[in-house]
């Protein structure tokens, strides 16, 4: 029942009860009392009425009011006090406390609502506490991960810093963002001085004999901008104090998620390798020169046997002496080739470009080998585009190229075949072509053709004479002359070699050695 109705009922019941009580009990009792006490005469009419009213009040209104108050207090006030105190306890933090609900009225509902609210609050707190626990757990985990990350980062940095070669990393503009200890030692700059600078202002790269770093710059910038594969360069680096040292440099783009955000430059001091290489070249040179003395002796004494100075030989003895002579000759050629290769490889070869008519040069070579191809009943035919320009190349070097290609064509073609030389211009290049209808090069050997000491399987059987150095030398000469060489061959049908030389010519080089010396 609603509280207002309850109170109305109580008040109504109080009024009814007090009326009944007053009419049937109090009024008679008051009349009787008045009579008994004989107070009527003393107070007059109004006095009696007042006295009666007083008695009625005392015996009727007061007790009934007290009863009504007690009832109302029990029903309304006490529960509110209880709710209030309970609320205070809850407010102090005891979320387990609940209101004791005794009625179903608004106060009971208030208590129930309070209980529900506290219940919700408690579960919310519980949830919050649970979440907080998880958050704390996660934080601990995160801290752990962070520590591990920091350790791993430090480890990575230590790893990079401790690399025994120079390492420089730059951003996409070429500004240095990282260098290692070895870089400091090699270049003489401190890391903090290098960070933020454009790399080529700190790292001065150049060719051994020039101050130019164009090639290095070009290659590295290309690598970064175009995102091509890494570039490898051998060059010289200048230290802070200006001293130069040789290095092998590898420049790679740094790519993350398909975006190039910088480059990494790795460089290794190759002073020792260069020194070893120089010693190797010197050794080959010295050994080859030393070999020439006994070779000359063998050759000359075989010659003396053959020319009959010391008496006539039998035909068998003549043949044996002839073999000695030919072998010695072959060995002389081998020594010459070795020397030429060591000269080319050392990079010390002189390149002395002269305006040269390639057709004329080729004709001279043809003349030099006339005896060889005539002996095999072969023909050498030369043709060329009209009005080819003279180009500035080293005629002594290019002569060697024609010589080797032509000698090979003669040697590795059967009797009576033709050898064709064709010289033409294609764009900015002069192309020389040497074709034969000879034994050809087996497919499986074609990849190794320009390797040092390589001789194709089929021609070793046909022609024992040969060093396997000729084409290697040819390629080295062409490349140092800024040209290209390629070929096409079919076993049993023949081979065509092409080599190109730039119309612009070969730049001069102040070397120290020349071929065939």
């Amino acid at each position, binding site marked *: 029942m609603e509280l207002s109705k309850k109170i109305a009922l109580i008040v109504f019941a109080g009024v009814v009860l007090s009326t009944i009580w007053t009419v049937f009990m109090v009024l008679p009792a008051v009349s009787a009392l008045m009579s008994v006490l004989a107070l009527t005469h003393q107070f007059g009419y109004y006095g009696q009425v007042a006295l009666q009213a007083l008695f009625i009040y005392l015996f009727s209104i007061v007790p009934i009011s007290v009863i009504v108050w007690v009832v109302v207090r029990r029903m309304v006030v006490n529960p509110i006090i209880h709710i209030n105190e309970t609320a205070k306890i809850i407010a102090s933090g005891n979320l387990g406390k609940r209101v004791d609900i005794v009625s179903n009225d608004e106060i009971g509902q208030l208590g129930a609502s309070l209980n529900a609210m506290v219940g919700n609050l408690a579960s919310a707190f519980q949830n919050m506490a649970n979440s907080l626990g998880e958050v704390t757990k996660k934080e601990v985990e995160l801290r752990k991960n962070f520590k591990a990350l920091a350790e791993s980062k430090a480890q990575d940095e230590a790893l990079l810093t401790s690399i025994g070669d120079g390492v420089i990393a730059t951003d996409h503009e070429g500004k240095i963002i990282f260098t290692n200890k070895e870089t400091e030692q090699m270049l003489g700059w401190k890391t903090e001085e290098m960070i933020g600078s454009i790399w080529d202002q700190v790292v001065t790269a150049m060719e051994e004999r020039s101050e130019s770093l164009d090639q290095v710059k070009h290659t590295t910038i290309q690598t970064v901008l175009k995102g091509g594969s890494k570039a490898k360069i051998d060059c010289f680096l200048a230290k802070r104090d200006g001293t130069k040292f040789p290095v092998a440099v590898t420049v790679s783009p740094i790519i993350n998620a398909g975006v190039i955000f910088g480059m990494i430059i790795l460089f290794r001091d190759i002073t020792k390798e260069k020194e070893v290489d120089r010693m190797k070249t010197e050794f080959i040179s010295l050994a080859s020169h030393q070999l020439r003395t006994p070779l*000359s002796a063998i050759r000359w004494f075989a010659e*003396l046997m053959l020319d009959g100075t010391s008496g006539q030989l039998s035909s068998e003895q003549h043949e044996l002496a002839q073999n000695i002579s030919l072998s010695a000759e072959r060995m002389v050629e081998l020594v010459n080739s070795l020397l030429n290769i060591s000269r080319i490889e050392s990079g010390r070869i002189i390149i002395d470009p002269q305006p040269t008519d390639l057709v004329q040069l080729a004709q001279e070579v043809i003349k030099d080998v006339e005896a060889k191809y005539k002996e095999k009943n072969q023909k050498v035919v030369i043709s060329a585009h009209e009005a080819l320009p003279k180009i500035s190349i080293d005629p002594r070097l290019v002569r060697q190229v024609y010589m080797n290609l032509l000698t090979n064509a003669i040697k590795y073609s059967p009797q009576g075949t033709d050898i064709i030389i064709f010289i033409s211009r294609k764009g900015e290049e002069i192309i020389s072509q040497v074709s034969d209808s000879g034994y050809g090069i087996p497919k499986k050997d074609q990849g190794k053709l320009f390797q040092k000491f390589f001789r194709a399987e089929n021609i070793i059987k046909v022609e024992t004479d040969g060093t396997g150095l000729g084409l290697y030398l040819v390629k080295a000469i062409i490349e140092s002359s800024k040209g290209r060489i390629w070929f096409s061959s079919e076993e049993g049908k023949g081979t065509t070699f092409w080599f190109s030389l730039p119309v612009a010519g070969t730049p001069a080089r102040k070397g120290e050695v020349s071929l065939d010396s």
Partner: protein
Amino acid sequence: MIQVVIVEDEKLLREAIVRKLDGKGIQPIPFESGKTALEYLKGAPNMPDIIWLDYYLKDINGLDFMYEIKEDSRLSKIPVMVVSNSASAEKVSKMLAVGVQKYLLKADYTLDDLIKAIDQILAQVKKEQEQK
């Protein structure tokens, strides 16, 4: 008879050259060192027709040998042919500049070739003398 002074410190090579020249009717006058050859030349009553010179000798190199020859007006007219194991461009051009007629690489030639080279030089010298 043509006389050739041979300066070659390798015994076997010297021997081969001497045998070849003898066989060809040329008179070899062999020396194993530069200094003994120079000594001989300075005191010789007749000048040889040509000097066959190795570049690397144990006591002196070809260039110094040439300087000595060129200082002596009597010797300076003798043609010289260098037959050496090594012929760098620098050496060759220096030797030709001091008056050497030919600079040949030893191992590349037979003795017959070298005698032909002597004949060529002598013919050339003769031609020049006639022109004068």
